[in-house]
């Protein structure tokens, strides 16, 4: 086996794995706080990519693309706040008995709505913003500049997210609500506000992935579908609700897909991820870092 080639496959898997993780962290963050699965996560990814495209092409110019990333996140964060206030809050305040079902129906409806809205606004075309960076070499490894930027950007965003969650008051409040809603409420945390912020932050992470990957996977109304599927796969591998699990799960899935698709066949690329998922669940039913829920 050629070691250079093997290291190239390995690096390709690492890059894609870290990028998958960003999506998965957003999904698991929303789940851990609100105990709901956001099925429209891919559409927030898609909106992030459209906002980035519009900013880079019409406002900022190709050289200032990096300013587009936080702006895209901000736009989607604000959109997330509005969506949460209007559509998700009734889940907790409206006396809805089957909260899971409500969340599933409402987020799937959002998914369909956003896809069609963007098909209507931007047409069914694919768009691609200008490259963030030219192709480069790390040692002897040829690397796509755009992927490298997405890789580094993801690490920065995940590190910032980790610091906020671990070291700030708001992060502590997020963790408290994630551990026990009632307990956090009795300690004076306004859980409704935390829900709103948590949803906004979660979808902003998806938007960051969309904005970072816009020149890699292009911009079109359904570009979030694959990322959402991978994101769900990762959170189950890593353990639902675990941020560390999302990172490890993302890396593992990226590696498995990259290596198996070369050594066996790319026709079954999605099968490899699901096989890994089945094996891990058979050995550890809660995933790598899954914890049992703490109940009051």
């Amino acid at each position, binding site marked *: 086996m050629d070691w250079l080639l093997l290291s190239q496959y390995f690096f*390709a898997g690492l890059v894609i794995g870290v990028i998958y993780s960003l999506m998965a962290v957003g999904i698991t963050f929303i789940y851990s706080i609100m105990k709901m699965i956001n099925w429209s996560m891919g559409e927030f990814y898609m909106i992030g990519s459209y906002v980035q495209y519009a900013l880079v092409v019409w406002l900022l110019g190709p050289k200032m693309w990096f300013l587009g990333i936080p702006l895209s996140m901000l736009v989607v964060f604000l959109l997330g706040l509005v969506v949460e206030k209007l559509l998700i809050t009734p889940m907790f305040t409206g006396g809805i008995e089957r909260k899971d079902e409500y969340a599933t129906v409402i987020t799937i409806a959002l998914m369909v709505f956003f896809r069609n809205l963007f098909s209507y606004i931007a047409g069914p075309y694919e768009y*691609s913003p200008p490259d963030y960076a030219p*192709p480069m070499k790390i040692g002897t490894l040829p690397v*796509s500049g755009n992927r490298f930027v997405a890789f580094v950007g993801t690490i920065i965003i995940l590190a910032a997210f980790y610091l906020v969650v671990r070291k700030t008051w708001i992060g502590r409040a997020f963790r408290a609500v994630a551990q026990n809603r009632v307990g956090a409420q009795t300690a004076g945390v306004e859980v409704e506000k935390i829900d709103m912020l948590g949803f906004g932050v979660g979808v902003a992470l998806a938007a960051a992935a969309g904005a970072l990957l816009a020149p890699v996977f*292009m911009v*079109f109304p359904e570009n979030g579908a*694959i990322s959402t599927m991978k994101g769900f796969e990762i959170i189950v591998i890593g353990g639902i609700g675990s941020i560390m699990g999302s990172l490890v799960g993302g890396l593992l899935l990226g590696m498995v897909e990259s290596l198996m*698709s*070369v050594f066996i066949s790319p026709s079954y690329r999605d099968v490899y991820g699901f096989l890994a998922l089945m094996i891990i669940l058979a050995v550890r039913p809660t995933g790598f870092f899954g914890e049992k829920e703490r109940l009051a």
Partner: protein
Amino acid sequence: MKRGRLLAVIGVVIAIVVIAAGYFLVARPRAKGPIRIGVLAPLSPPGDYMAGKLIVRGAELAAKYVNEHGGVLGGRTIEIVVEDDSGTPEKGVAGYKRLVTEKKVVAVIGQYHSSVCLAICPIADQYGVPLIATQAAAAKITEGHYKAVFRMHAINPARAKLWLEFIKKMGWKKIAILAENTDYGIGLLEETKAMAKEMGLAIEIKDIVFDRGTKDFTPQLLDIQAWGADLVINIGVGDDAYLIIKQAYDIGLYPKVPMLASYDFPVRPEYWKNLGDKGNYMLFISYYHPMMKLTDLGKWFKAEYEKKYNEPPVYTAYNAFGAVVVVAQAIEQAGSADPAAIIKALETGTFKSWNSDAVTFPRGEGIYWHQWSPPMVIVQYTKTGQKYETAPIVFPEEMKTGEVYLPGG
């Protein structure tokens, strides 16, 4: 006596009502109502929805052409009814059935993805409503000898033959083929391998079949790069085709190693927007080049299309236009809008289209059953942002307008 007269009056009234109802329900609408032609095309992912949009544009302009030129069967107009197949066989079958049973179309045109078309073929035979495939290329479509299925697009074996002759001329020995796992992709891959043997070509083929909808091709492209390919054949459709080019460029594989696209997506307006510099030097199969001669129908279409959409038409739209005008001529030749009569007329008649005045669909042998093939060429872009009309035809020899340029030497 009075009773008898009353019964007679009632009898006459009933007879008048029955005759009038029969006239209004059956005879009158048929005489004056529009004739519906269905368009079944991918208008949403995972299908190539841009192609679907172009098919619809072509068909709508065809209806305009026919209606402005007197309609069919003494003045009846043509109405286009559109259904989305999403590029998936199950939606395609449901769409075909809806067009035939609910919308009462007399023929269906369109079809871009071979897998969808193949799923519909037996259903078309069952319902007996003709289907004219405008851009589905799998050999099995016509090889199946379906009574109601016709095609006016290049078949895979002809495409494979063209690029193998090109490879032979270029003296390339190591050919990597990236093909999607559909009837189109796998069919084309198999045809290429079989035909290379048949032609006695001493080439090595590295085939990689990928799942449609794959977003990351980097590991496969690295593999091809390490193998030392002389040519990469890109048998991706829609987004996948673009991603293969982008990712091959990013790892330094293309354009150092030339790439040949299996169909004409580079002629679409969004090609340069999506790829910029990365799209330069692309070689691709095409079925239409602006240097080619158009018929009067083709000239009318080109002018109307440019007026309406402010961009030049491409093959996908041209061929959908051609299919609808061919159906209209078949209705006229049959003297009836009955689907069985249209099928008979299609088999025996000669029709005018955008690129030929002698389109026929005879019951030919093997894959040439109900088949009409347009000419095919290989074109290459040589400048970023180049307009299609200035891109040279590089193969076949008898049609070429320029030489192949290899930036990798």
